C-alpha cells in the first residue's frame, strides 16, 4: 500500500547560494508592521538622558512580504509531525490536535495579575486539571508550575530533599539512584539539588538489575529516579518490589513521566509506589514540541509531600476558585505565575476530549504500534537487543558494521524522520523507535520498507550512506568546526 512519498521537494528556494538570513534581507528604513504611532516624546526628559542607549539595536528591517517569504521558506526547510512521520524514541511525537490550538487562544488576553474574581474560568480550568492529573498519575496533589520535564524533575527532587530535611535526614541522605539507561536530565537534576548520583546497571532482560539495585540502596539514599517503562521501552516487572525496597530504607521513589504514553489510563505511577511523578504534557498530552519547547512538566505527589509543593495551587472555595498559597513546607516557587498556562489549556482539552476510555485506548494502541514496528524492523534486518514484548517504544540496532548515524541520515531523503539514536547509552548504536498511537499501520509498514531500502543501499555500495542525505537543504553540517570555532550570531561582513 501507500509507500511513504519521497521527501517533498523544497521547491521554495533551492539555490547553490546560502539561504539568506533575515538580517541579509534587511534594508534601512523598511517596516513590516504598523504599531500605534507614538506621540512626540522627549525620552531624555522622561527617562533621564544618561539612561538612553546611544545606538539602536540592529534588528532586521524588512517589508511585510519579505518577512512572510522568509518565515514561509524557513518552514519549508523543516520536518514536523504534521508533515513527516517522526518516531523519535522517548519523545512521543504524536499528533497535536488542532482543536487544542483553538482552545488555547481563548485565554490569550487573560492577565496573571488580575483579581481572582476576574479570572474564575482560568482558575477553574487549573483546578480541574490538577484533579485530572492526580487521577491519571495516582497521586494526591499536583502542581502545574513546572515548565518542562526537567523542570518537573527539579521540582520533585527539591521536594524530596525538603522532605528529608523536615524529617531530620537531610544530612544523611545525599545520594540519588538512577538506572544507567536514564535520561541525562535525571542525573543532571540530582546534581542541581546537590545530590551525588549513583547508577544502577541494566540487567540482561533490559530491566533494572535487582541485585545491583539492592547493593547501592541504603539509608543514605534520598531518591530513586525511574521511568516505567524504562528507556528501553520495557516495563519494570519488579516495580512493586523496587518500591518496597526503596521505601524500606526510607528513600523516595521518583517517576520520570516521559514514558507515560505506555501506561496512561491503564496503570498509575502512584499505584506502583512512586511518591513523586512528573508528566511531560508535550509528550503524552499532545501539547506541541514547538521545535524545542515550551514543554510543561506538572508534578504530582503523594499526600505526605503535598505541603512541599511550590505555591500557589488552585483551590475551590465557597465563592469559586482561588489561589492557594497555604503550603507550609513549600520549596518555594519554581517559576513565575501559574505555569505554562497555554499548554495547560491544550492538555486539558485533550484529556477532556478523550475521557477515561479514550486515554486507556491511547496506551493500548501506542504499545500495539510499537510492537508491530519492532517485528517489522526485525524482518527488515535490524537486530533487536532486548527482543521481547515491549511497551510504547523499543530499541533496535543497525546490522554489524553499520552505524546508527548513517541509517538516520539516509532516512532523511525519504521524507521520514529518524528514530532517536545513541540513546539509551546502554545499547551500542542504539536506535530507539517510538511510533506513537496516532500513526497508521501503513505508515509503519512504509517506514520498515524504507529502512529495508537503506540496508539494500548499504549492501550495494557501502560508501553510499556515508554521504547521505542527498536531497536535504543542507547535508551533514560540520559540527566539529561549529563547536571549535563558535559563530553564535550574525555579524555583517561589510558595512551595510
Amino acid at each position, binding site marked *: 500500500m501507500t509507500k511513504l512519498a519521497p521527501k517533498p521537494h523544497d521547491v521554495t528556494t533551492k539555490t547553490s547560494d546560502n539561504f539568506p538570513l533575515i538580517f541579509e534581507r534587511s534594508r534601512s528604513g523598511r*517596516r513590516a508592521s504598523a504599531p500605534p504611532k507614538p506621540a512626540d516624546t522627549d525620552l531624555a526628559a522622561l527617562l533621564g538622558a544618561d539612561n538612553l542607549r546611544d545606538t539602536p539595536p540592529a534588528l532586521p528591517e524588512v517589508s511585510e512580504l519579505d518577512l512572510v517569504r522568509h518565515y514561509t521558506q524557513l518552514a519549508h526547510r523543516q520536518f514536523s509531525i504534521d508533515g513527516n512521520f517522526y518516531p523519535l524514541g522517548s519523545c512521543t511525537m504524536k499528533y497535536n490536535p488542532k482543536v487544542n490550538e483553538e482552545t488555547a487562544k481563548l485565554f490569550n488576553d487573560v*492577565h496573571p495579575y488580575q483579581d481572582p474574581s476576574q479570572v474564575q474560568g482560568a482558575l477553574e480550568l487549573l483546578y480541574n486539571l490538577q484533579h485530572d492529573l492526580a487521577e491519571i498519575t495516582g497521586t494526591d496533589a499536583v502542581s502545574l508550575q513546572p515548565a518542562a520535564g526537567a523542570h518537573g524533575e527539579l521540582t520533585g527532587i527539591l521536594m524530596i530533599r525538603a522532605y528529608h530535611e523536615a524529617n531530620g535526614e537531610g544530612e544523611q541522605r545525599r545520594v540519588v539512584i538512577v538506572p544507567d539507561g536514564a535520561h541525562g536530565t535525571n542525573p543532571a537534576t540530582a546534581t542541581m539539588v546537590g545530590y551525588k548520583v549513583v547508577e544502577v546497571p541494566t540487567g540482561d532482560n533490559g530491566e533494572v538489575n535487582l541485585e545491583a539495585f539492592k547493593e547501592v540502596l541504603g539509608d543514605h539514599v534520598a531518591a530513586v529516579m525511574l521511568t516505567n517503562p524504562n528507556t528501553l521501552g520495557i516495563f519494570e516487572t519488579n516495580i512493586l518490589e523496587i518500591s518496597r525496597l526503596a521505601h524500606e530504607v526510607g528513600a523516595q521513589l521518583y517517576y520520570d513521566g516521559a514514558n507515560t504514553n505506555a501506561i496512561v489510563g491503564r496503570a498509575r505511577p502512584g499505584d506502583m509506589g512512586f511518591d513523586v511523578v512528573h508528566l511531560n504534557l508535550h509528550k503524552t498530552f499532545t501539547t506541541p514540541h514547538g521545535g*524545542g519547547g515550551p514543554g510543561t512538566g506538572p508534578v504530582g505527589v503523594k499526600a505526605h509531600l503535598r505541603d512541599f509543593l511550590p505555591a500557589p495551587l488552585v483551590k475551590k472555595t465557597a465563592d469559586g476558585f482561588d489561589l492557594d498559597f497555604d503550603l507550609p513546607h513549600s520549596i518555594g516557587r519554581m*517559576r513565575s505565575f*501559574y505555569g505554562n498556562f*497555554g499548554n495547560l489549556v491544550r492538555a486539558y482539552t485533550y484529556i477532556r476530549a478523550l475521557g477515561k476510555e479514550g486515554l486507556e485506548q491511547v496506551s493500548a494502541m501506542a504499545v500495539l504500534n510499537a510492537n508491530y514496528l519492532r*517485528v517489522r524492523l526485525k524482518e527488515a534486518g535490524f537486530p533487536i537487543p532486548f527482543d521481547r514484548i515491549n511497551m510504547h517504544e523499543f530499541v533496535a540496532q543497525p546490522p554489524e558494521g553499520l552505524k546508527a548515524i548513517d541509517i538516520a541520515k539516509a532516512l532523511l531523503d525519504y521524507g521520514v524522520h529518524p528514530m532517536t539514536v545513541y540513546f539509551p547509552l546502554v545499547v551500542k548504536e542504539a536506535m530507539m523507535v517510538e511510533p506513537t498511537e496516532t500513526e497508521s499501520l501503513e505508515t509503519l509498514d512504509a517506514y520498515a520498507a524504507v529502512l529495508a531500502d537503506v540496508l539494500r543501499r548499504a549492501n550495494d555500495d557501502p560508501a553510499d550512506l556515508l554521504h547521505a542525505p542527498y536531497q536535504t537543504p543542507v547535508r551533514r553540517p560540520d559540527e566539529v568546526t561549529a563547536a571549535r570555532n563558535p559563530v553564535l550570531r550574525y555579524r555583517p561582513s561589510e558595512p551595510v
Partner: protein
Amino acid sequence: MNYLPHTPDDIAMALRVIGVDSVDELFADMPKALRKPDMDLPSGMDETSLLEHLRGLAAKNKGGGSSLLGGGVRNHFIPSVTPHLALQSEFVTAYTPYQAEVAQGILQATFEYQTMMSELTGLPVSNASMYDGASSVAEAALLAVRQAKKHNKVLISSGVHPESREVAKTYLKPLGIEVVEIALDNMITPQPEVDDDVAGVIVQSPNFLGYIEPMADLANAAHDAGALFIAVCDPLSLAVLKAPGDYGADIAVGDGQTIGNPVAFGGPHFGYMVVSDDLLRQLPGRIVGETTDEEGKRAFVLTLQAREQHIRRSKAKSNICSNHQLAALMAAVNLSALGPQGLRDVATQSVHNAHSLAKQLAGAGLEDAGFKVEAEPNFFNEFVLRSPVPAKALRRALADAGVQAGVPVPSAYGLGNAVVLSATELTTQADIDALIAALQNVGQPAPKQVEVAYD
C-alpha cells in the same frame, strides 16, 4: 473523540504480526494489581461539546486585554503577521533540531533570535531560550557561582521581581548558596557592600516597581569585588534604554513576553539569557551555531552540546532540556516585524502613556483620598501608586468597576498599601479616564465589605 487510526481489522492484523492474541497480552508485564485503575475522570466529548465547555470557561474570565496591568508581563502590540508566521505547523510540531539537515527552519530562526537578543542586550552570546524570566534569574545566579567557583553568595536587589527572587532562592538554597537581598532605598537599589565571597550581583532595571536603576554604578560595585553583574531587563525597554553590555553587565536575563507573546495568564512566555564571551562555556541551555555543510553551504547546528545534560549528565551546566523555542520564535518574528523603529515606537508610546497616566493621576485630586503617585525616580512604563486601602482590595474595587489595574506591591517593600500601575502603547485616554473615575470612587468612604474581604 480520539485520534486513533486503528480499525478492528488493523488491530487484528497487528496482533497477528506481533504473535499475541489480545491487546491485554501486550501488557502482561504489568502486575495485575496495577491494571485498570479506577480513575475519576469524565467520559470523552465530541468536538462541539468540547469547544462549548472550553468557551464556557473562557467566558468566565473578564476584562482581558487590559493594558493597565503590568508586573513584568503586559499586553503589547503584536501585529497579525507574527502569529501567522511563527505558528506555522512546521514550526509548531517540530522536535528539538537534533537532525540539522531537516531542521534548518528552526535552527536558522534560532540563530537569528540569538542575534536579535545579542543586539538588544549588547552582549555577544545568547542561548536559544530559557523557560521564563524567573528561572533565568536563578540559572544566571548558578552560572555566576559556577564561574566564580570559590564564592557561594549572591546579592540580589529587592527590585528584582519578587517571583524571580523566590525562584532564585528555591534553586540556590539546596546548594548552600546564600542569597542576600539588597533592600531598596527610595525605590531604587543603593550601592551595596559586595564582599569577596559574592559570586554575583543581580539587579533588575526597570525594577519591579518600574524605576530605572543606576546600573553602571551597581555594575562597578560588583566588578570591584570580583563578582559578576547580572542585569535583569524587560527586553522591550532595551529599545531605548542603555543595554546591559553598555554598562558592563556580564549576564543579561529576563522574561521575553513583552516582545511578542500574549500574556496568556502567565505563559508560556520565554526567558532569555545573553552573556559575555568568557561565560560561553558556562551557559546553560541550547545554543545554535553557524557552520558549513559537505558542499560548503552555510548551515546551522546545535553546538557546544558538551555543556548539556544529554552529553554530560550529572556534570552538565544545568538540567534544562526542552526550552521555550516556539515562544522565542514568536519574539524573533515579532522583532523582525517591528524592526528597530517599530520597537522604539512601541516602547516610546508605552513610556509616553505611562508618564501621561502618572501626570493625570497626580492632577486628579486623589491625594486627599490618600492616593499618591511616586513619579520619582525615573520610571519606564510602570510606577507606584500608594493607596489608602490594601492593595488587593484596591485591585478588587477597580475590577468591580470594570478596570483591570493595580499589581499589589508586597508589604516587604515597606511602602504600605501600594500598587504598581502600568501603561502600554495600547492604553487609551478612555482607559485612563476609567481608572481615575474608579479611583475617585474608591477614594470615597471605603466600602466596608471590600476591605474586610481582603485584609
